[in-house]
Each structure stands twice: as structure tokens, then as C-alpha cells.
């Protein structure tokens, strides 16, 4: 079980990111990550230990996302089919190793986001509100909220890029 614990710890952020891309509602995506975790534990004896674990977990995630879509077929949901999800699982695995420095830089860069933009981003990411609900709360149009989110994320993203470039420069000095 220690092995499972270790493997799942490595795979979980990758799985969570893939699900976040396919199911944008935070509550739903977190429920799905839980379902993947439970399935991974239940099916762990079936896992071929000679093969990488994360792609196996991503395959489970793909199936669970598809079932989620099927159950909620009548709702206006993001919809990716099996082929798309499979491609995304492969891509997610490919970029998994890039994220460590980015997350460290993100913590620093997020601190630079202040005022209303920060508030909107917290409402979106911390409290899981959709842009329409944020707009209703702050007396803004949905589009204005989206623009603010877009600019906030863009600022964080650019800051991360600058931070990583600076770190690379320090490392070679």
C-alpha cells in the first residue's frame, strides 16, 4: 500500500489537471478526482507494475470523465469525446514534469495581484463562482468579469515567465 500511496501522490496532480481541463466546474472536477482515487485503490491489483503508473491512472480518469458526461448528458456541459480525452491524457503526462518551478513562481506572482482583480480571482478560484455569479455579486457584466480574470491570469503567467527566466540567469551566472 505504501507503493500505491507513493504512486498516487505522484499521479494525482497530473490527473487533477487533466480533469480540470475537461470538467471546468470545480466541485464536479474535485468529485471526479475522488472517484479516480477510489478506483485506483480498488483496481490497484490489476495495475501492471512494469508499466508507468500515471498513464494508467489517467486512463481511469478518462473513463470516469466519460461516465460523468453520460450521466449529465442533458445539461450544458463541456464535452470532449474519448479520442480527445485520450490525446489530452497523453499531453498531460508529457508536460507533468514542467510544473514544479512554475508553481513556486506562481505563489510569488499571485501576491502581486491586488485590488478588485485579486478579489475576482479569489471568487472564481477559491470559491468556485462562475463569471456570471461574480458579476451579479460585484455589479459587473459577465464579460467584464471574464476580461478581469483574463488579465489577472495573464499578469500571473507573464510574471511566472519573467521569474523563471531570471532564475535561469542566476543559475548560469
Amino acid at each position, binding site marked *: 500500500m505504501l507503493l500505491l500511496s507513493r504512486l498516487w501522490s505522484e499521479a494525482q496532480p497530473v490527473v487533477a*489537471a487533466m480533469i480540470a*481541463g475537461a470538467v471546468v466546474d470545480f466541485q464536479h472536477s474535485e468529485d471526479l478526482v475522488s472517484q479516480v482515487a477510489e478506483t485506483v485503490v480498488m483496481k490497484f491489483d490489476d495495475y501492471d507494475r512494469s508499466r508507468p503508473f500515471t498513464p494508467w491512472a489517467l486512463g481511469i480518469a478518462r473513463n470516469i470523465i466519460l461516465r460523468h458526461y453520460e450521466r449529465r448528458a442533458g445539461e450544458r456541459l463541456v464535452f470532449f469525446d474519448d479520442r480527445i480525452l485520450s490525446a489530452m491524457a497523453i499531453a498531460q503526462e508529457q508536460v507533468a514534469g514542467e510544473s514544479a518551478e512554475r508553481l513556486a513562481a506562481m505563489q510569488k506572482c499571485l501576491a502581486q495581484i491586488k485590488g478588485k482583480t485579486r478579489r475576482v480571482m479569489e471568487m472564481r478560484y477559491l470559491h468556485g463562482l462562475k463569471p456570471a455569479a461574480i458579476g451579479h455579486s460585484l455589479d459587473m457584466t459577465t464579460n467584464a468579469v471574464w476580461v478581469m480574470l483574463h488579465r489577472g491570469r495573464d499578469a500571473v*503567467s507573464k510574471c511566472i515567465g519573467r521569474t523563471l527566466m531570471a532564475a535561469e540567469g542566476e543559475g548560469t551566472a
Partner: protein
Amino acid sequence: MSNVDNARPMPGGDDRDADRYEQLVSRHFDGLLSAEESHELGALAATDPARARDFARRSMFHQHLRATLRLEHEYAGRAPDAVGHARGRWRFGGESAGMSGWAGRAVAIVLAVAVGVAGVGWLATSSSSSSSRSIEADVPGAVSSAPPFAVLNAAVDDVWADSNVGLSLRHGALPRGPIRLVSGRVEMLFKSGGTAVIEGPAVFEPIAANALELSEGSARCHCPSKGTELRVVTPATTVTDLGTEFLVSVGSNQQTRLAVTEGSVRIDGGGGSRLVHEGEAFVIDQEGWKDDIGFLKDEAKVAKLRDADRDIFERFPERLADPNMHGVGSGSLPEMGQRASLDPRTTGWMASGGSDGIVRVEPVGGSAVQIHSRGSVYWPLVAQEVVTGDIDGQLVVFEAVAAQPANDLLSGRQCAIVKIEFIDANRRMIGDAQRHFLRAGTPVNRYVAGMIAAEAPAGTVAVRAFVLLNAFGGKTGSIIVERASLVVASED
């Protein structure tokens, strides 16, 4: 992906597809696409590997954004479940005698999870002091967030549905809402002094300083003395521990099974109230109570935690180099990754993770190591690695003796942690164990022992032993480590 949310042409594919992809993807993560547009976006991403990777990076970016904001929220102490109380009133029963055998997830690995990195536990504990400053800005002065009414005390092989939950718990926080433990065991310590060892799969939520809500799974609850109380609320009943020990389990049918192993408890529900005494077991549902003696017979193997028997280790030498810290001298310990010993069987003591990089060794009344918080949001530490050879299945015990100094008290959620990692021949960590001890509010200038014991998994060839400080971004707060020992039990 220099700017994940910034419209720009993608390499590969024609410009029209690239423009359309940008139009769609920038609105996708806010839920502003129709199902048809989403499918179009997916098709555009899936047909171009570069675009697929870009989409994957954006997914990771949004996931990290949410995780980071949550983490900052926890650090800023704004969580509504963070119950404030004055330092000194916080009692943690039995921490100085933390002798139970545990194997569990490591703080370093949880951090690795948080940053999305596999297999960097050794390095992760020393990462990024720059990020610590950004979080520290939200934490005025010393640690501002008081401990919640229940904290993680130890863990064995725990797998969380959401690894951020594990991260929060290891920082001494208590995430809001029901917590889903997929597998393994954790021990939660309540402000009342009671403990609950919860066995996954389980869904639970500490709901008060003396109350646990258990929706699914099993828990062994213990109140160490009269005057401590712990209630367990299940869908069928409420069990009140009256200074005793009992096991409660909730099945998928919401039926509650109860076995009392020591003392007595009161149960309310199932049509009334009654006392249940040692050696009795019941199943409780909407129809009432029935005897369930089979559960009592089986419970011994469920969520049972065994104290390490110190006598069995007497014949075995301490395996750490310089267990009494005589040779650490003054100044700084070598950084993690550097050897501090010429002995091939051990690295000697190393340090990492303070806000200024290296743990300082300071004169503290003899040979000892003082681990400072100094704004670190991680776990500054001292550690050494010992080559053990094949010790598959043998019990490994690590004990450290530490104190908090009167002139640099622990506060808030800060605490000391003892931890061991099992390393295989490929230098991979294949298991670990940890226990929290020496928390804020405990007596100052008094050395207490923190001990962990865990069976070495198959393939173990070396063990890393750590003493860490859960610094929690505090500018102040330190622990003094006076000695430590690592022993491996006999196979017989």
C-alpha cells in the same frame, strides 16, 4: 508556455485554427463555452500535439492557481473553521510519549504533490525561499493562524482523494467540509485530548473540539483520561466516549457498528440512549440495536496501533552517526545532498530548508541543533541517511529528543516532526513514516521524545531519518534537537 492565458499564435496548424483555438481556450476555463464550442476546442487541441500540450499546461495552470489560492487562504488564517484560542491553553495529550508505530505519507512528498513533481521528496523540503516571502506577506509577525480544533497527529500509508487536503493537514490546518481518506490510516488529535484513528476508505469531518462526524469508514477513538470526551456522530447514532476506547464503523448502508474495548460509552440513537460497556458490541440502524459480538472479535485487527516495544531494541546499536550531536560543532551544517561523513554507511547530519537556506547550529547549552522557522513556509530540517542493507519487514524506529526554547517559542500550528524514509537500490523513496510532536503551548525548555516505528518495505537498502520543524511561515519559533537514534529490530 510563457503566458498560458495570453492569446498568441500556436506553433503548428494553420493560423485560422490557431486563432480559433485561442478564442475558445481563453474562455473555456471559465465555463463560458457551449458544449459544441467545447467539442470544437477539444478537436482543435487533439489534432495538434503542440496544441494538446498547450491545453495540458493551461489545465495545470488553472489547477495550480486554485491550489495556490487555497493554500494562501489557509496561511492567512481566514478559514472560518480556524478556531482561535490563546497560546498555552492548547493541550495535546500524550505527545511526549508518541510511541505508536506508523508508516505514512511524508511532508516532503506532499509538498512534491503540491508542486506536481514526482520523486523529489528529498529536495522538496528545501525548495523555494522566494515563494515563502510571498506567503509570509499575509502572515503578520509570528504565526497568525491558531491551530484548529483538530489536527493531524500521525499517518500510516494515507492516500487522500485530494492531496491538497493532505497538504493542509500536514501544515496543521483543518480543511473545511468532509474529508475523504481513500486508504490508509490517520490519527486526528482533538482539542479535547481525545484521538481518533481513522481507517480508509472513510469520509469524516471533525466538527468540534470534541466531536467527529463519520459518514463512512472506521474509527478507533480513545480518550486518555476522565475529563476528556470525544463524540462520534454517525448517520445512525451518536457515540460519546466517557474516558475509554471504542471502535465505530459506518457501512455504505449507513448502519453503525460499535465495539467497546475499554471502559464504557453512551450511545444516543436507534430509538433511545444506553450505556455500552467493555466487551459489548452492537449494530445500530433505524430499526434499533442488535448484538454484534462478531464485530468485537474482528476489531482487534482493524485500526489497531501498536506501541513500539523498546525492550526489543536494546541489543542493537544506534545507527546514526553522532546521535548526541557532539560533532556538529558551530556554524552551519552541510546542505542536503552533501556528505558530512567519510563513513560510507552514513551521510552524517545535514540540514536544509530554513528561510536563509541552512539550519544554524547555535550554542544552546551543549551539543544540539536548533532549527529555526525564520519565515519558511515549508519544513526546515536536519537529516541523515544510513545504509542498512536488506531489512525487508524489520521494524525501524527513529526517535528524536527535542525542546522548544523559552526565547523562541513555537506558536500557532508550528510543531516538530520525526520522519523516516525508506530508500531502495534505485535511490527511490519507497515508503515513509512520520509523527508530529512538540506543539505550541507545550512546556518550554523541556526535552520530549518523538518516536516513529514502521516496518521496512521490501527493497529497502537505506533509511533517511529527519527531524523537521513545521514552520508555517512564522518569523519566530524554533526547536532544539538534542539527540536522536535510529535502530532496526531483530528479525527474531
